[in-house]
């Protein structure tokens, strides 16, 4: 059973690593936001699920398991809100998009 928990934490480490590499390599601010979503979804959920299993089965501590579940729900509910707010604020503030950008229908419609 302990190996299942290790697998969950390993998945979480892999996606957190991919998100960090993406944050360092991507060409502009909006693509970096896409990579940071990688950290805040599966990077979080792996550790949370593994922690719930470990504290329920090995530590026999229901309080810790419930608190971890609350943290998971909180992350899932709040991370899209702050991501959307930062993306919109950055665009309105005038952050440049990279030269690889294919189309920008938002900017075209705002100029009208």
């Amino acid at each position, binding site marked *: 059973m302990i190996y299942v928990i290790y697998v969950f934490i390993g998945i979480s480490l892999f996606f957190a690593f991919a998100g960090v*590499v*993406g944050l360092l390599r991507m060409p502009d601010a909006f693509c970096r936001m896409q990579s940071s979503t990688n950290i805040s979804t599966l990077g979080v959920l792996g550790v949370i699920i593994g922690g719930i299993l470990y504290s329920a089965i090995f530590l026999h501590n229901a309080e810790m398991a419930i608190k971890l579940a*609350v943290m998971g729900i909180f992350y899932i509910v709040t991370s899209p809100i702050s991501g959307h707010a930062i993306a919109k604020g950055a665009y309105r503030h005038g952050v440049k998009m990279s030269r690889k950008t294919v189309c920008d229908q938002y900017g075209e419609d705002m100029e009208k």
Partner: protein
Amino acid sequence: MKKATVPAIVSTALVCFIFWLLITGQVASLLRGEPSAQVLIAGVIVSLAAALFSARFFIHEKPFFFANPARLGKLIAYCFCIFPIELIKANVDVARRALSPSLPVNPGIVKVPVEVKGEYAQAMLADSITLTPGTITMETVEEDGQDYYYIHWIDVASQDGAEAGEAIKGTLEKWVRRIWE
């Protein structure tokens, strides 16, 4: 902004009280059969006070929409079966793009028509789109009765609105419309 009704305040207070029970660790005590009356009474008072001031920001339509078991079942099926599959697929795709040596991205902002109606349903669809890596909802607008989202997409496969919408939110939109109909 219209005034809050009594059912709206009651439903907001119920959600606040459940959150209070979870973060004060009272659920574990209830499972053991020894709840503390002081904490429960304080929770009722605090959640009612919080709901009195904040209900008009949260509840604009039917307050007890999810009191119906069929709708609740569909919501649970969406949260635990349909959405995680899309989430894992999108996560693997973005992780592969970030780790591959040539960095295959062609980002862009597309305008996508949306078929779902109502505040809650649109908020739920926009949050689902933002939560899947690779797409971020930037703004929602309404033009002549048709709602549009502006979506930043990391791999623009098509600049046409309908095709892009099908690729971004095909299954998600079908299920969200089924939940909130």
